[in-house]
């Protein structure tokens, strides 16, 4: 996939606050940032690695702007986790425009998730460009 992510240089951290979980994601490019956000979400949901039946899915998300696209992307993954019990850990992401995402996601269909995530929120949402790439924060309702 052209423009796909270089995951090795990306990183994320889960910061816990009183009743919420904040994802802090760093990546060298925007597609990497979205891929890393997907990985961070899988970690937040606490699905054990290596369990379940392998699955692969093409995902398309559209939103009004780049920030909303990050929220909608994570909410798409939250929906797939709850409705289809699919947890994705590897992503190849393309961003053809500011408000459109195409992804090839790989993961597993699992029996049970450790931690429920209700939704990704717009609360304290930010994507910031840095000299070496991008930093984003997204708050999850857990």
């Amino acid at each position, binding site marked *: 996939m052209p423009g796909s992510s270089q995951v090795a240089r990306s990183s994320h951290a889960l910061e*816990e*606050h*009183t*009743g*919420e979980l904040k994802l802090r994601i760093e990546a060298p490019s925007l597609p990497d940032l979205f891929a890393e956000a997907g990985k961070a979400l899988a970690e937040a949901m606490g699905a054990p690695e290596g369990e379940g039946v392998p699955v692969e899915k093409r995902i398309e998300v559209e*939103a*009004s702007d780049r*920030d*909303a696209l990050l*929220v*909608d992307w994570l*909410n798409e993954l*939250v*929906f797939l*986790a*709850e*409705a289809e*019990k699919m947890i994705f850990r590897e992503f190849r992401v393309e961003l053809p425009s500011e408000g459109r995402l195409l992804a090839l996601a790989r993961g597993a269909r699992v029996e*049970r*998730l*450790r*931690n*429920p995530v*209700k*939704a990704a*929120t*717009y*609360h304290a*949402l930010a994507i910031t460009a840095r000299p070496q790439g991008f930093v984003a924060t997204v*708050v999850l*309702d*857990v």
Partner: protein
Amino acid sequence: MDYELRQVGPFLHEVVRPEGSGTRPPARVFADEELLAQIRRDRSLWQLVNVTALPGIARAALGMPDMHEGYGFPVGGVAATRLPDGVISPGGIGFDINCGVRLLVSQLRQEAVAASIEPLVHEISRSIPAGYGRKGRLSLTRDELDHVLDEGCPYLFREHGVGHPEDLEYIESGGALPGAEAGQVSDRAKVRGADQLGTLGGGNHFVEVQVVEAIYDEEAARRFGLFAGQIAVLVHTGSRGLGHQVCTDHLRTMDSVVRRYGISLPDRQLACAPLSSPEGRSYHAAMAAAANFGFCNRQVIGHRVRDVFRRVLRSPEAELRLVYDVAHNTAKIERYGSETLCVHRKGATRAFGPSNPELPKAYRGVGQPVLIPGSMGTASHVLVGTDEAREISFASTCHGAGRAMSRGAAKRRVAGHLLRAELLARGIFVRCPSNTELAEEAPIAYKDVDRVVEVVHRVGIARKVARLRPIGVVKG
């Protein structure tokens, strides 16, 4: 952000208006000094001030003594908007639409179940799927799910025989909010909720077997059918993934139209639209439908607990009667004098007083039962609504203890297996998927519910009736 507060009444504090807030109504919070200090530790005051920016806000944005930081709105917040043009905001209800509480009581005293508590809790745990994404036993076709969303508990009783006929009078709004439309609930939300009717969900959701340990108001307790030493059951859960998806879907829609309606917001999570607009009406209808799903979820769980009580205890006195079922996360259209308001209650409980005509006949002249769940393993309270609350707080009061510590911090402070042993030593038998999940919901992670209740009692927005302590806990 550190706000200056000035006391404007007993336990009532007003945020001194920040520069640039213009003619916005004030933000006020009910609390004593200790709860106020806890509230100041997070950003909930900032969020309450942001709420005053919503178009059409009436009188003031109010914080209850259990207020804590939420998403857009604080949890423990009450905001009323004037209709027809005032806004409705999904963030003012929250993701867990109609998270709420149901109290059922037996005629048994604690001594009668002491020997059976372990099998009782075990059987409740087996009958009610807990946790995330677990399949419930009440499986519905899509058409049946639409009826649940449109009609709520009356449909569930009429067509599926779930519950007793007299239950309906003892559920807020009869277990069916007006204006609900299944057609405004997305397919995605229906997919998420399809297998979740009758499931607890994670977090602080629980079913507890409790004992009435103290009565504060003999007359109200008598009218509610409560007596000291009585065995009761408290169910705490909401509309599950269906409600979460309704909030997600409509937040997204409102986020895209905020500018079109000329609304400027300090926080994107406060996305809203006039209730009179197509987007506002659509969300209200979907929210009401999700609330009906929440009422039905607790109806199914209560029905199963009744069955377990019959099977395990084998006594006519084990029959569970519904005292009341209240919502903690809703927006309701209510009349205050000459105004019609959309009252957003997010982590707040409706608290109608004795003169309200919507009360069940048996509670007229007393008031609406207000059910305040403790955190897992701590006391819960039954309060009663007051007529004064209409003037003071849009007939609203607190909803519970409120989190004071993150799940991770609780895990670092508490060892799950030790907590389990400690609870058992205090006479509380717990069923929980894991020790880790138990530690996350440890009592020290929550504010002091007794203190919260004391404040609302002294302010007069609900009065204390009874205190219940758990002897058996099934955690989601």
